[in-house]
Each structure stands twice: as structure tokens, then as C-alpha cells.
């Protein structure tokens, strides 16, 4: 006989639900009690993007590491916020020999390392030689310095391979900050990642890849920091950085990794006096690279036409809410010494005329594949906007097709000539025009206007001009106004050839809570962390 049993309701389940509710309630209560923000220190919390894998100056290259090293160490010279070279560990400006091949630098005599040892010429020479042996960017220094000499305890002499004006700027680089020979005795030929013993206003109290603590160095030779210490934290995405500042979890935010709308939101808050915002000198430029050794971009007229067709103001507004400033030079404004920008402004009539001269617009369209880096959101927006702008302004003359490629692949294939037109950016390794012009324009071997070997090939333009390399070399031998003039000449030659079309520059920004003073930047685009403090 079949037994008809229905699944009955579980009468005790309401009790289970009650128990579950109590349990959840207790958990929430515990969590809530644990959720009360705890501020247990007077130190300032400073957030930035990305983790710090090493604090060894010999490995430093990212902005995040340079920023920390700037607080922990000093350099021989610094660029002040007006862009002027000022002695830091050096006692005076460098003395250049008549032949320009020897640079003598007198050093301060009142400087101590964090471990108590004395800073002197031997210590400086040790640090420079160590960098020349193991520094990841030693090619920048090797190219200039032949040997290092210490004629007396507080005087260092650099013998140069060639006269170089830009070496003064190079000596402001945080990766050339001196380290204590005593502390680095066992690391003279290998990296010391999680410690740093230098001469700066802060000592490194603790180090983790995502958290570092900096405390004021009592025996610092210069002015004491305005704060009692810093807790630096490194967050991995822009939402976290933005949220940490808005929620008040961090005191200061240093970052260029924020999305454009987040930057705009923070600027808006700053305009309402809810935050304090500062902007430093731009060190990063963005440009279009045109492959100039094959048709159709082999024609200078076509490249010039494209240069005239770019509406930078519109593109900057659409892509970055005007937060990226239009640029018509290969050198950021802070390093140009007031010289004019040589690239043409947006001029539709001129662009059309040039396209017509090149045989387009009258039944024939220029087909141009434009590559953008898929992992850089602003690249894609720029490409889409320029494409739409050309479609609107010059529909009969030019048609742009877009290709998205991951940046690693772009860099790998650039020198192979894989891209007709590609959007890229560049930040100089030190604050000097040479750090922009040489890596973008140098050419070792050329044939007419085509570069066959050199940085112009590595950069994907394959372009040079008669006399360009000589002007570039000459500019590094001159000083002052003469040098600026020569640099402007090189910039103008590049503008006439138009292998690049500069788009905009990106100035670093920093935000602080309203109770703090506005962050200040030095001439290298790094925040002066020692000057962060309560508003006076």
C-alpha cells in the first residue's frame, strides 16, 4: 500500500530563523563596534598608487618610488618650484672647467646620514659609482660620466665623456641620492630593497610593499619637517584612492592614476573649500607618433595636414574635462624657458589645403589606421574623439580607422614599423629638455629624412632631418639663453617635419584635507612631503 506522505512544513524552522537572526545581529553589532574609525597617530597618512617593490635608488624609476626617495634622501641639486637649479647637498653651483669636460662640486660639511656617519665626497663618490655599476638607469649617467674623483673630503669632481649642460639636471634625480657607505657596505654591488639610509629629512621607520612609515630625522641639516611623520600607503586602484580621500581615511592623496571624472570631482570639492588642491609642473607629455618612412605618411605635407587637423582644445574637453592642457611642443612648458610652441594650431582651412596639395579631398580619401593602447583609457577616448572630429571636419579628405593594442605589444612592435599612427606618452627621466628631445629625436644613422638607427627608430617615427642631430648635440654643450634658443630650434625642426603631433601635457596633482596646507611641488614634479602640515 502506498503511503501518501506530503512533505510537511518544518515546524521548528521559525526557531532556526530566530536563532539565525540573533546570530546575524550579534555579528553586525560586533562589526559595528570594530567599524569605528581609529586614528591613533598624529602622523599624516599619504596615499598613492602602486606598490613599492624596492627603495634602492639604484632601482628607482617609478614616480611612487622617486617620491619616497625624495623624502628620505637629498640630491646634490634640486629644481625649485620656479624651475631654477638650487644646491642641496652641494654647497654652491657646479664649477665647469674651460673645456667643459670636468665638473667640480663643493659639498656641504654639516650633513649626516641616518646611521650617524658623515656625508662627504667619498660617500657621494661611493653612491655614484654604485649607481654606475648596478643602477637600472645607469645608461643615462654612463653616457656622460667618465670617472669620479675626490680631490678633497668635501669636493667631488666628475670627469665627463663630452661637454653636457644637462648633467646639472641629471644630478637632481632622486636615483642619484647618496646612501651611507657604511650601511651599504654589503650591498655595494647588489640591491637593498627594504631599507634606506640616506641624508634626507625623514628616516625610514618601517617598510612593507604597500605601507611605509617615515619619521623626522633629528639630525637633519636643513629645516625640520612640518609634520611629526608620515604613513605612506599604496592602493591598487583609482576608486580606492579616490574613496580614501573623500571618506577622510587619508590626509593627502598624490596620484596621477585617478580617472578623469574623479579628478574633476576632487577639483570641484577643492573649489568648494572641502579639499586643498595643488598642481605641479608637468613632466608627462602625450603625442601621436607618425611613421614617416613609408607612404602615405612619408609625405611631410600629409603629416602637416594631420597636425593642422587636430583640435586639441575640443579633444581635451571631451576626454579630460579640460584637465589636460593642450600642447604644441615636445617639451613640457616648465622646461621650455618661455619659448613659443612651434606646432601649428587647429586650422581646418590649412589642413584641407594641405590635404588637397597631397592629392586628397577630390575623390580620394587618406586612409589612416590609428592605434591606441587599450589599457590606457584616455588613449581610446582621444582616438574616438579625433576620429569623430575628422569625420565631421574633413569627411572627403581623411578616414581614420581605429585599432586597439595592449601597450606592451605597442612598445615591442614600435621599432618594427608596425604602426602608421599611434598615441604614446613620455616622461623625461630628469627635468631637462634634453630628456625629451634626445629620446624622441636622436638618430645615429640616416639617409636623407629617414632615420635607419637610433632613438627615432625605437620610437617608431623613422624620421630625422639634416642638421637635427648636430643641433641636438650642440644644445647640450651650450648654457643659458643660448641653449634654450638651440633647443627651440630643434623643437621647431621637429614641428616642421611633424613626425610627432603633440596633444597635451599632464601636470601632477595632489589633494589634502582642508585642515592641512596645500601640498607644494618641486621643479621635478614631486611633492615636498616635509612641507605637509596643519594650516597656519
Amino acid at each position, binding site marked *: 500500500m502506498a*503511503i501518501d*506522505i506530503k*512533505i*510537511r*512544513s*518544518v*515546524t*521548528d*524552522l521559525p526557531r*532556526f530563523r530566530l536563532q*539565525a537572526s540573533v546570530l546575524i545581529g550579534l555579528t553586525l553589532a560586533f*562589526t*559595528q563596534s*570594530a*567599524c569605528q*574609525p*581609529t586614528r591613533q*597617530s598624529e*602622523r599624516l597618512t599619504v596615499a598613492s598608487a602602486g*606598490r613599492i*617593490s624596492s627603495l*634602492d635608488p639604484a*632601482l628607482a*624609476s617609478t614616480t611612487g618610488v622617486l617620491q619616497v626617495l625624495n623624502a628620505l634622501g637629498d640630491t646634490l641639486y634640486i629644481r625649485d618650484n620656479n624651475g631654477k637649479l638650487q644646491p642641496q647637498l652641494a654647497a654652491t653651483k657646479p664649477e665647469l672647467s674651460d673645456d667643459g669636460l670636468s665638473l667640480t662640486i663643493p659639498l656641504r660639511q654639516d650633513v649626516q646620514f641616518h646611521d650617524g656617519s658623515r656625508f662627504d665626497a667619498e660617500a657621494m663618490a661611493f653612491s655614484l659609482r654604485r649607481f654606475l655599476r648596478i643602477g*637600472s638607469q645607469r*645608461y643615462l649617467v654612463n653616457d656622460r660620466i667618465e670617472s669620479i674623483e675626490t680631490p678633497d673630503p668635501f669636493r667631488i669632481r666628475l670627469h665627463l665623456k663630452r661637454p653636457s649642460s644637462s648633467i646639472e639636471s641629471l644630478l637632481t634625480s632622486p636615483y642619484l641620492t647618496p646612501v651611507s657607505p657604511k650601511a651599504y657596505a654589503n650591498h655595494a654591488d*647588489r*640591491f637593498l*630593497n627594504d631599507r634606506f639610509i640616506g641624508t634626507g629629512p625623514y628616516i625610514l621607520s*618601517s617598510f*612593507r*610593499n*604597500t*605601507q611605509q*612609515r617615515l619619521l623626522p630625522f633629528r639630525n637633519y641639516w636643513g629645516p625640520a619637517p612640518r609634520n611629526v611623520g608620515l604613513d*605612506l*600607503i*599604496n*592602493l*591598487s*586602484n583609482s*576608486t*580606492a584612492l*579616490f*574613496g*580614501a580621500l*573623500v*571618506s577622510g*581615511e587619508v590626509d593627502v592623496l598624490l596620484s596621477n592614476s585617478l580617472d578623469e571624472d574623479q579628478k574633476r570631482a576632487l577639483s570641484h570639492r577643492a573649489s568648494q573649500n572641502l579639499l586643498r588642491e595643488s598642481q605641479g609642473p608637468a613632466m608627462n607629455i602625450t603625442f601621436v607618433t607618425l611613421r614617416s618612412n613609408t607612404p602615405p605618411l612619408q609625405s611631410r605635407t600629409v603629416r602637416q595636414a594631420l597636425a593642422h587637423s587636430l583640435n586639441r582644445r575640443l579633444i581635451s574637453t571631451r576626454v579630460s574635462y579640460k584637465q589636460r592642457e593642450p600642447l604644441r611642443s615636445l617639451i613640457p612648458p616648465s622646461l621650455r624657458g618661455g619659448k613659443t610652441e612651434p606646432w601649428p594650431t587647429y586650422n581646418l582651412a590649412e589642413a584641407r589645403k594641405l590635404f588637397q596639395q597631397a592629392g586628397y579631398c577630390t575623390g580620394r580619401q587618406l586612409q589612416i589606421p590609428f592605434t591606441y593602447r587599450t589599457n590606457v583609457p584616455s588613449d581610446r577616448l582621444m582616438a574616438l574623439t579625433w576620429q569623430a572630429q575628422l569625420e565631421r571636419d574633413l569627411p572627403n579628405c581623411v578616414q581614420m580607422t581605429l585599432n586597439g593594442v*595592449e601597450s*606592451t*605589444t605597442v*612598445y*615591442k*612592435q614600435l621599432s618594427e614599423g608596425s604602426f602608421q599612427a599611434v598615441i604614446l606618452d*613620455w616622461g623625461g*627621466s630628469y627635468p631637462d629638455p634634453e630628456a625629451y628631445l634626445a629620446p624622441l629625436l636622436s638618430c645615429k644613422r640616416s639617409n636623407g629624412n629617414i632615420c635607419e638607427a637610433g*632613438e627615432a627608430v*625605437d*620610437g617608431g617615427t623613422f624620421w630625422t632631418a639634416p642638421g637635427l642631430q648636430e643641433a641636438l648635440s650642440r644644445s647640450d654643450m651650450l648654457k643659458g639663453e643660448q641653449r634654450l634658443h638651440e633647443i627651440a630650434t630643434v623643437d621647431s625642426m621637429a614641428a616642421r617635419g611633424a613626425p610627432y603631433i603633440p596633444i597635451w601635457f599632464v601636470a601632477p596633482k595632489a589633494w589634502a584635507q582642508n585642515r592641512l596646507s596645500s601640498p607644494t611641488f618641486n621643479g621635478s614634479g614631486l611633492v615636498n612631503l616635509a612641507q605637509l602640515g596643519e594650516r597656519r
Partner: protein
Amino acid sequence: MARGRELFRYCATRLALAPLMLWLIASLVFLLLRVAPGDPVDAVLGSRAPEAAKAALRSSLGLDQSLWHQYLDFLGELMRGDLGVALINNESVRSIIGKTLPASLELGITALIIAAILGLAVGFSGVAKPEGKFDLAGRFYGIGTYALPPFWAAMLIQLVFAVMLGWLPVGGRFPPSLIPPEGSGFLIYDSVINGNWSALQGSIRHLVLPACTLGLLLSGVFTNTLRLHLNRTLKSDYVEAARSRGLSETQVVMRHALPNALLPVLTIAGIIVASLIGGALLIEVTFSWPGIALRLQQSINQRDYPVVQGIIVAIAALVVMVSVAVDLLVAMLDPRVRY
């Protein structure tokens, strides 16, 4: 006894095959990394460094050797238990794993516990009235949490609870104002052992959001599995027999149906551990959790071959161990299982 021998043989086979599997995975990762575009030298020097400088670095890192030579070197070191050093800063890969794995395990284990409690509670709550309100809500919850894009959900939770309400930290693993306790790397455990209560509070505050988010996203799998198997079990003959013996419904569910319905859940939990690594990456990125998945992603971006290889081998070994452990546990709990 025969079953015990079978189980032993099965485990021995699985463990003996583990090195083979690890070798296959390591070889595949080695090959894929070299085939993928990008160059660790670019990550160290920058993409626009002179070719001569790049060639010099490539030579010092041994990257100018033939692929075959590099592969044999890698295998030789792996067999000696040496995972090599990071190309970026010469830090030992073993030390990198030692620093980051505890963070991921702490997050993963907490998330798994939350997922199990939450998922099983929701799945169980619908049993009283199949097709009722609670059952439908549980079904919706199971599908909904499973279907939520993890990155979006994590960001939303972060914005609401950390940014808007300010209840919990936006990211990180420990308050910047405190010094993390020394020890195993499991901060909650270390805080308790050291009696450091402010560190414990700080660790929990930082763990709550990422663990709850990951737990919430994983809980749907538990809900659906339990619902499905509990409903099936409640209709089985032995449950009917228990009822006919006059046992209360609570006794029937708790003593007879639930233990049997939980066995598949245990197997699912084992599979989830493997998928946890992928899920944890998105959570670790969103909440800046300094775990092994975040480090893996950064090392892939930098094409730091030894770190990527080492981390993947470590994760694979972990998954193999968990898988064998789950099989053993299921076999011990369920006498019907044969190998």
C-alpha cells in the same frame, strides 16, 4: 579494510601524479610567458632605454640564452626547490610567496566561512516551504550572487560601506598608523597570539569588506547546491522511512536529510577553493589587498618570469593538496564512495 586500502592507493596515486601535474603547469606557464609579447627588460629600464642597455641587462638576467637553456635552468632550480629571484628587484620568489600567501589565505578562508554560513543558511531557509516565499528568495539569491560581476559588486560595496557610509576602510590590510604584529603573516592569528588587541581590531576592520564581498559572491553556489540536494534528499526513501517511524520533521531534516545533502556541498567547497584564486584577484585589486593574486597580476604586467612561474606553481600545489584533502574527507564521511 579493503576500502581503506583502496583509499590509500587512490591518495598515493593522486600524490604521485602531483609532481607530474606541477611540471606540466610550470612548463606551460614558462612557455606562455615567453610567447606573450613584452619584455621584463622594458619593465626595469623603460621601453625607450637604448638597445645596448637593454642587451646588457638581458644578458645579465640570462634572458639572452636559448629558450631550451632557460627552460632546463628553470626546471633544475624547481627540482631543487629554488623558485629563483624576481627580475625586478632580485627578491627571492620564495620570500615573495611567504609574504603574500598568508594574506590571500586569510582572506580566502574567511570568505569561504562567510560563504558557507550565508549560503547554507539561505539555502536551508527555503526547506520549510518549497516554492514558498523564502524558497523563491533563496533561489533568486543563489542565482543573483553567482551572476553578479565580482569587480562591479566589489566596487559598489566599497563605495557604499567605505566611501559613503565610512564604516570600514577603503582598502589595504592593516591600519597605516599601527605596526603589524610579527609572526606567521596571518594578522588576526598573530594579533591574538601577541595579545595586541588594537592590531586585532584593525585587521578585522580591514578584512570585513573584502571577505564579506568575496563570501557573498561565493555563497550563491552553496545556496543552490544545498537547495537542490536537500530537496532531492527530502524525497528519498530513507527520509520517508524516517518520517513513517514518527520522527519529528526537525529530526528528519537535521539527522537524516541535511548530513547527506551536505556531502556534495563539501565537494563543491573543494572546487571553490580553486576558483577562489581567480575571484580573489578581482577582490584583491579592488580592495588593495596585498595578497598573492594581486602580486601575480603585477608580476604578469612586469613580465617578471620567475615570480609568475613561482606563484603559479605554488597555487597549483595548493589546489592539488586541497583537492586530495577534500577527496579524503568525503571518502571518510561517505561510506558509499568507492575509488
